[in-house]
């Protein structure tokens, strides 16, 4: 999928600030290394609107301790009340993705009621002057439905609206019959000698 234009995203973010019918919800996204035992630390705080699907980044706190660039990181959601092993859901990425030289995109997947159930993450080259972190909310995507043929609509007379009336045989071929008769009349005279 092509990336939506950055300006467009920026403008939607501005709109969010301006007015929102439903109060914004806060969400903390965690990051923690892929190690046998590690505790999730907050990576980003995001405020999003479940109805308009707009989101703004409140804070961005990448891990400060130096991690090996080839090491792997988990980025995802986690319930701070529950043990981390049981409550987390998330993706894996390389630690080098969090380098400020790259642009990051956080995708929040929301269900039908606007709750975020999963986070997506991708990092790619950053152009000069571009924001470091992009946030996008992806709502429930309705699957395709079969495109049905339109039913035939009849008018009061029980006929199809707008359909041309079928011409009768005579209306269609009067000219052929006319020619035939003409030929018969013209050619018929000479028969009797």
């Amino acid at each position: 999928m092509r990336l939506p234009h950055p300006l467009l995203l920026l403008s939607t973010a501005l709109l969010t600030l301006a007015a929102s019918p439903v109060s914004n919800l806060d969400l903390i996204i965690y990051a923690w290394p892929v190690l046998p035992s590690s505790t999730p630390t907050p990576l980003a705080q995001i405020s999003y609107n479940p109805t308009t699907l707009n989101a703004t980044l409140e804070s961005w706190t990448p891990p400060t301790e130096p991690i090996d660039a080839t090491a792997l990181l988990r980025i995802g959601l986690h319930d701070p009340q529950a043990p981390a092993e049981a409550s987390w859901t998330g993706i894996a990425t390389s630690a080098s993705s969090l380098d400020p030289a790259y642009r990051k995109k956080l995708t929040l997947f929301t269900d039908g009621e606007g709750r975020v159930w999963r986070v997506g993450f991708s990092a790619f080259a950053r152009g000069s002057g571009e924001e470091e972190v992009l946030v996008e909310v992806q709502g429930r995507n309705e699957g395709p439905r079969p495109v049905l043929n339109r039913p035939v609509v009849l008018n009061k007379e029980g006929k199809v609206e707008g359909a041309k009336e079928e011409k009768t045989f005579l209306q269609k071929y009067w000219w052929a019959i006319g020619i035939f008769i003409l030929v018969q009349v013209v050619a018929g005279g000479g028969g009797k000698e």
Partner: protein
Amino acid sequence: MRLHALLSLASLLPSALAVFADDAYHVDYHHALLGLPQQHTSFFQQPYAGSKAALIYTLSDKLVLGAVNPKDGHIVWRQSLASSDAIKSWLRAGQGQDTVVAAVGSHVTAWSAADGRLVWSAESLSGPVQDLEIIEIEDSEVSAGPKDVLVLFNASTPVVSRLDGKTGQVKWSFEDESGDAPLQVLASGAGIHYVSLHTTLLGGLKIKVVSLDQSTGHKTDQYSLSSESDLSSVDSILFVGANSASPILAWTDKFSRALKVNIVGTKSVASLDIEGKDGVGIDTISLHAPLATNSMPHFLVQIQTAQSHWADVYHIDLKRSLISKAYSLPRVAGKGAFATSTVDANVYFTRITADEVTVVSSVSHGILGRWPLKATAVPDLSDQPYPVSAVSEVVSRSGSAQAVRSAVLFSNGEWALIRNGEVTWSRPEALAGVTAAIWAELPETESLADQLEIESHGNILAAYIHRVKRHAGDLQYLPGWLQKLPSRILANFSGGSTRRPLDGLQKDSFGFRKLIVVATEKGRMAALNAGGSGKILWSMDTVPLTAEEKWTPQLRTSSGGAIAVHDQARGLSLLIDAATGKLLPVDPHVNSAFRHPSTGAAVVSYSLAEGEVRAHTPGQENPIPLWRFLPATDESILDITPRPADDPVASIGKVLGDRRVLYKYLNPNLVLVTAVHRTASTLSVYLLDSTSGDVLYTASHSGVDVTRKITSAISENWFTYSYTLDVSSSSLSRGHQLVVAELYESAIPDDRGPLDTAANYSSFQPAAAPGDVAKPHVVSQTFQISEEISKMSVTQTRQGITSRQLLAVLPESNSIVGIPRNVIDPRRPVGRDPTPAEVTEGLVRYSPVVDFDPKWYLNHKREVFGIVGLITSPSLLESTSLIFAYGLDLFGTRVTPSFSFDVLGKDFNKLQMLATVVALFVGVMFVAPLVRRKQINSRWQIT
């Protein structure tokens, strides 16, 4: 416009594939199975009164009702009666009737015995069937029609109903309001009896017998047997004799020392001693009695211990209501089976042991016939099979048994017909209920590839010596090859080579000969030869299981023609040689990591467990969780479908009509997750990258019937899934739908997205290109289909050049269809005719309904029952894909989705071609001098 329509029709033509009439029954093979026949629901019976030949009727443990021809073992007809609430099943047929009556769950159904058509069906709303009998002796009015049926329903108040044999309508019902547990009903010459069990205060069971009036169902008499002292559970009731002249009730006491027998209608209980002959505990006691109303009142008690078995025959004196022992049959080591058969009033007992078949009359112990038993046909690698149960038919003349044929179920699941000691046919019923299957390559002792590897890595001299040695070694095959040459050439010219059955285990040049290793739910493994019409090569019991357990192992190909069997539930790991079935030593390190089949690199392993998908780091001793996928709130995952590990793609793009290219999104790590929200009736599909766990695409469908089958398939750059809409759906259409989605790198032709032509891409590392690279552009469309799909798969070919077919199992019509890919192309133009450019692509106008063309049915006239899985494999021919479907039945075939463009057809006449060449040659020889002379003449003659 018309031209377009014609063109689009023409573009459809190559996809209008069918199974050719001369291919049917040659390229495909089918094991039509029933399941293990049960002793109490199997019998020989004439399909209609006056028929000379009998059929074997059985209702198997898989609840398949079938009639089998005893001559060749072929199925005459089959009906699947599988229902969810079924625990027990019954099958009865009245003497001289043309229907058989079956009861499964709360359904009673009557089937035409000759052709298996439904005659009537009756359903009880109160509870399941507890017993079923046929009223053989009509009371007053002599009706010519089918005999009535007596059914006992186990409801809160048990009901005995008499159903009209013609229509299944209830004639009368008797309700037992005493609160006792219903046991059985008996319909015999002595009238109708209803037997129930009354629990006494001390926990013993008292047998209560109620006599009912046959024509009204009113209670006429009632008495109890004082059995509470020795009867404590229903399991110790051995037999409640039905339909015989003198029905009996038999049970054993608590210590299996004595057999208690009561003649129904009397109150006396006879106690018959069971002697433990070799001092060991008795395993089972079973009672065999004739079921015909006019037969002599004799019965046989079989006693089985761990080492041996024997039997006692008893006679009932009807006048004095006395039971006396007539004679004993000698003790024989091992296990045996007895079968009762009646000829007129005479009763014969057939005894089948592991090595012989004997027939005795119930009157005296003299052996009427004895035949040594020859070994069964299929090599069984486990223990020597022994007979488990049998049904017999005896032909007797002037006091001696002329012939006996018995349908015997052996412990290895073979159901064989033994005619005078010889196995006439044998059905591999153990293979009914395959839960896993995998393709295996044929063993090659020393593959050429390995040899060449050695030669290319050694120094020149050593390699040269090696090659000379190898060639010298190959010389030994030369005489044999030369010997076969004439016959091979002849076979080639007569067109016989393609029809010759491929039964050997040597490789063929087309790669059709492959092995299929299957695992059944009963813990058995077997191998089939896919090239040799599905012949079973070996079969063995691998895991001992209890009756309730179902074995669902994972099978994977390992190196050297071995199959790795994993059973996570039991912590079992086996390595089996696919060709011989021998167990190989397991190397724990080899099996611990999932490896890519072609590169051998360790890959991220993920699995669906406890309602979530978890992935772990590859190639480590103690894998660390890498990513974790939980579906949206309150959704539960149904299944995950990964893209096949070996899925060759011939072209990275799709060439459009205007010569531009849409580049395919080809990610080898795609996995499709289907999840449902049970209360909201929604289906969600999630496409994940299995390396990073990123969600690439989601789609939700509301108003889906989540109780029905939802199945998916993924291949190349497309995936598909099917579901059924429920009544509450807001959609304008109802029924079954099939969604097809294609993934592209970009929506714009000739554009490869931010990644462009980069050779490498990592799911973890940040991309060097600007823009979100990982997400595909998805084009999808939904089609309405006429039937529910229970399982889907995609054909596979060697290079992936051949167009693919979506294979779908249709459980309602017991068939498998191959849907051509271009019919379900999501780029079909909607609401308009295709442009000329689209027509050249082969796109036709979208129509919401995809009808299954009769030509797509791969099973042609065969009926494939209970298919749970489909596996495909490429052959050496690019045009051909091998297919194997498993479940209750086993069915295999091969398909050519783009026709067999790389092999000569059967109708190609090589002789004619050769004759043409010879004729042309002769013609040239003949004409050449003439032409030469004419040329010379034309230069020299001046006329």
